[in-house]
């Protein structure tokens, strides 16, 4: 009974945090792009004269989307048309279940892993869910009875399949180094140190090429500029051209949730997840010889904080990429995916294998 309750609290907490971050991202995106382009950004929505730096625009957006007409085009497949946005956002959200947001919390003698679902195949599960997310895009394009939406759906399917392969091939190196698919174990393995204890054994230090490839493929996975071919605002409006109201909002949210998911995944795989440099389960051990003892609770809190700081850093990077680079042309996108990223990730696997054999 207790275990069920704990799992329930953990999943509800994760879900709320993710929704909170994704909602906040609509504001962050506006403000960050504004700052990058020397503008001020959204600041007009007020509640009782308070502007709160434009934060109320989130509520204004939600109100607008809820009060709009939900239009279903003539000739559309109503069932699939209504299903697509739910698929899109559901599969983006369920991936978070397997992401560890913190280490091991001890409460009244119970050891709780801060992770909604403690799966030993967490990585495969997340990749499966991310691949399922394609169905939302494809079905939206297919069921809208609109040629532009159809084009967007096809592009989305082609793009996401080609980048999914690179993603999986890129993290194979990480899996080989840490020898596990369990993300909690993977995070724990990244708590080791290299070079006399100065540099933590994080994924980004042991697998730099894999990190770069994964970053690129992950940006493509979020379907945002520079990889926004399925959407393509300036040519075809994309797979959600016929959607209005909150259903469009759900596609919009799914993109942002995917951004958070990809950032969290990158944190877990390459920046040690909830690891804090030099923090061990019983306190800090500095490489220059200092020791600071800490009990379990502050260690776990520091870990969760560190996880979210890293996630914010990756979200910032993805946003900066989105507001800096121009889009790819379709053939350039496919060239990059199949001719550069995929061979590079295979080479990375080969090099990793050779190095592992030699270090043994």
């Amino acid at each position, binding site marked *: 009974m207790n275990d069920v309750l704990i799992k329930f609290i953990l999943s509800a907490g994760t879900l709320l945090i993710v929704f909170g971050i994704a909602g906040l991202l609509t504001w962050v995106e506006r403000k960050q792009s504004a700052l990058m382009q020397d503008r001020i950004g959204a600041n007009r929505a007020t509640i009782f004269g308070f502007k709160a730096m434009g934060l109320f625009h989130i509520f204004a957006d939600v109100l607008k989307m809820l009060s709009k007409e939900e239009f279903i085009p003539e000739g559309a497949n109503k069932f699939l048309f209504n299903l697509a946005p739910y698929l899109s956002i559901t599969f983006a959200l369920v991936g978070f279940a397997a992401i560890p947001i913190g280490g091991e919390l001890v409460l009244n003698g119970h050891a709780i892993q801060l992770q909604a679902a403690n799966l030993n195949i967490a990585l495969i599960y997340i990749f499966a869910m991310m691949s399922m997310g394609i169905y939302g895009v494809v079905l939206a394009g297919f069921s809208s009875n609109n040629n532009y939406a159809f084009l967007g759906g096809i592009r989305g399917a082609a793009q996401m399949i080609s980048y999914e392969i690179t993603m999986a091939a890129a993290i194979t190196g990480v899996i080989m180094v840490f020898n596990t698919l369990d993300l909690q174990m993977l995070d724990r393995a990244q708590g080791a140190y290299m070079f006399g204890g100065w540099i933590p054994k994080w994924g980004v230090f042991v697998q730099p090429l894999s990190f770069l490839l994964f970053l690129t493929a992950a940006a493509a996975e979020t379907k945002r500029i520079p990889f926004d071919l399925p959407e393509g605002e300036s040519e075809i409006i994309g797979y959600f051209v016929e959607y209005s109201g909150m259903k469009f909002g759900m596609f919009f949210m799914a993109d942002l949730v995917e951004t958070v998911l990809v950032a969290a995944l990158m944190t877990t795989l390459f920046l040690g997840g909830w690891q804090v440099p030099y923090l061990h389960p019983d306190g800090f051990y500095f490489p220059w010889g200092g020791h600071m003892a800490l009990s379990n609770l502050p260690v776990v809190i520091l870990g969760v904080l560190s996880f979210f700081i890293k996630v914010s850093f990756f979200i910032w990077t993805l946003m900066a*990429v989105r507001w800096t680079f121009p889009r790819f042309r379709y053939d350039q996108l496919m060239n990059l995916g199949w001719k550069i990223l995929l061979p590079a990730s295979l080479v990375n696997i080969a090099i990793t294998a050779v190095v592992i054999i030699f270090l043994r």
Partner: protein
Amino acid sequence: MGNMTEKRRLELEKYFDPKGSFASLRMAQMKRAWKQSNRRELNWLENTYIPTLMEGLWLTSKHFFYNLTFHVFHLFGLYKEIPAAVTYQYPEKPRPLALRLRTRHRLTKREDGSVRCVACMMCETICPARCIEITAAEHPDPNIEKYPFEFNIDLGKCVYCGFCVEACPEDAIRMDTNKLDIAEYTRQNMIYNKKRLMEG
């Protein structure tokens, strides 16, 4: 032609017969074109586009952190004179206008507050858009001949040429109110009468 490789020269020669007429002339033309287009082969590092991408990210990040720092300073009331954005928050803070810019008209007043205009009809005569309409009346003061009983400017027609200001012998009409955002719901409301024009 320092960076013209043999490969490129061969490419150029594909387009014309090197032994034909005017061959040297056309070769020189093409060489000039290559030089002006400033193209060169990319090396392998540039071909990955990574240095250029990093340069772009560096530029936007610099802007981001510079503006963020000054926005934070502004929150605490510091360095208000250094702007963190190039935009103007329009209705609250209009952008600075040129001193000689012609904006909405106003009718100047005498020291006792009455209108300075003597209804000489100069402005109405010179107006190329015919938007000024004056009805003159006799002034009670014998030293002043007339005054405008009605003075209407149809701002929907006005072309802001400033001829009325130039023509006025009494300095009675000026275009220095710095009001640009003139909007009304009806055409009738666009006609400004003497009272509205005197309010400035």
